[in-house]
């Protein structure tokens, strides 16, 4: 990490004595100014107003602001200090022990919602189409964390689909609690429709399906749903899913330690959500950071997912996932259309992605027999 020039530090100090504290984590004056503004707004909002002082005056907000800046300088993520993070039009609550939603994930969620709508418009007319009154649109969100993807998808798709069923799966009970709290929070803020309470469900399950653990595998949860809705089909072991979306842990143990992972992330965000378990034996010589993808692709084939959207760490990892999917389907048994997004210059610029480095997602269309 390059040293901050003394001139910048002096300028920051002259502007506001708290700015150098924030500069430690922000690294640029511009973003430090922004964070100071947001922190000040929050400090003012949370401090009790006094009837003795002038109207609008707040008690102790300066002390509060200083302690928040000090926390930030130690590397505590801004979202843990403020307690929330905007995601689309939603406000997602953030607590220690649960991964903070990233802007890239927001872009992928918007893209996924666009694809689902497009699919529904193209496939209009036939009976298995989710726009029809009988069959709900089914979405499965694996490793849901704060529940941000599941909730934003509901907010984006609810005006277009009468019936929806969104299932969010996570291993961590803390994350599940927070996801349910977020659902409630956003329904109360009226950012989500009231029917979201019935449409969205969060369950605890192990995506990796480890035999030793007492936590159920994802299939068990899904078969329970199939029984409940009376749609259990003998030929299909699990109900058909329209969209399978996931942001699984994808950082390798070496990347976690060698400085590519930011200090703030390493120290304060849960390792469970970032690095796949080391002890888990992947098949066919998979890298340890890719173990989740094989399991999720396997599930995606089982539930005949129409669209699968998987967040990956970088282009190399995305390419490995595409290759994994090719070998798993054995060439061209079904007409799958697999792409890495975003790749065009226009998409990259519009969504603020780095042209070579940085996160990408793999989008798999199909699963229909051709």
């Amino acid at each position, binding site marked *: 990490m390059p040293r901050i020039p003394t001139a910048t530090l002096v300028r920051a100090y002259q502007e506001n004595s708290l700015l150098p504290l924030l500069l430690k984590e922000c690294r640029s004056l511009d*973003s430090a100014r922004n964070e100071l503004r*947001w922190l000040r707004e929050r400090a003012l909002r949370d401090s009790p107003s006094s009837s003795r002082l002038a109207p609008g005056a707040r008690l102790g907000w300066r002390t509060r602001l200083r302690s928040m800046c000090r926390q930030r300088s130690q590397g505590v993520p*801004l979202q843990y200090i403020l307690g929330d993070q*905007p995601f689309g039009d939603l406000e997602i609550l953030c607590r220690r022990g649960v*991964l903070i939603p*990233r*802007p890239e994930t927001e872009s992928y969620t918007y893209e996924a919602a666009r694809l689902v709508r497009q699919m529904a418009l193209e496939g209009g007319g036939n009976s298995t189409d989710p726009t029809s009154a009988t069959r709900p649109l089914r979405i499965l969100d694996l490793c849901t964390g704060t529940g941000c993807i599941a909730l934003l998808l509901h907010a984006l798709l609810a005006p277009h689909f009468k019936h929806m069923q969104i299932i969010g799966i996570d291993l961590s009970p803390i994350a599940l609690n927070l996801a349910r709290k977020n659902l409630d929070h956003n329904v109360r803020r009226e950012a989500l429709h009231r029917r979201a309470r019935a449409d969205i469900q969060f369950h605890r399950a192990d995506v990796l399906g480890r035999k030793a653990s007492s936590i159920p595998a994802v299939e068990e949860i899904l078969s329970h749903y199939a029984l409940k809705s009376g749609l259990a089909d003998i030929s299909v072991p699990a109900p058909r899913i329209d969209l399978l979306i996931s942001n699984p842990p994808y950082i390798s143990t070496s990347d976690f330690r060698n400085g590519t*992972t930011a200090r703030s992330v390493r120290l304060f965000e849960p390792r469970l959500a970032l690095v796949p378990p080391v002890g888990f034996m992947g098949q066919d010589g998979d890298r340890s950071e890719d173990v989740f993808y094989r399991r999720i692709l396997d599930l995606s084939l089982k539930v005949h997912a129409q669209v699968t959207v998987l967040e990956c760490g970088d282009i190399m990892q995305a390419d490995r996932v595409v290759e994994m999917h090719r070998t798993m389907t054995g060439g061209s048994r079904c007409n799958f259309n697999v792409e890495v997004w975003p790749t065009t210059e226009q998409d990259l610029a519009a969504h603020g992605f780095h042209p070579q480095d940085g996160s990408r997602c793999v989008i798999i269309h199909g699963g229909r027999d051709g």
Partner: protein
Amino acid sequence: MLRPHPWPRISRGLSILGLDVTSSPSGTGIARRPFTQTPSCPAKPLPARLKINDADLTISYLKGTGPGGQKINKTNSAVQIIHAPSGIVVKCQATRSRSQNEKIARQLLADKVEVQEKGDQSRVALKTEAARKKKASRLKKTRRKYRGLEKEAEEDGSGDLEEEGVEAGVDEREAQEGKLEKGQST
């Protein structure tokens, strides 16, 4: 000038009598009358907001440099919009929310494009003009008030001047000032 509005007393009287004003079946509309005396809409309605064609816009989210994803937790949420026909660029990083920033940036852009197209007749120009007039009138009233108070103090001091003459003098000066004001504004 400001007389107390009649209906609060009436409604209190009715409620003392045990009558519910809001659901009165007579439909006199007493309860529904607004309790404010300022008109709810401005005297001259502003022209409609300029509609900007989405095809002319290039919206981009600026997340700063470097890779993103799980490895880094960025707080930058700036949105930049370029309007191709006029070449106007607007950037907004007011809030932490990308969608909120986009809304603000769109509004800023619409205002800027309108100013460029219509000049003095744009919403922004009309609004600032209205605000300027309001401020000028308020200042005038303040000046008048303090001048009156000063005069009164002088009178108390000397005590011999005739009241009517002084008041007339003040009125004359006000009238002159009013003319001046008009001259400036036109």
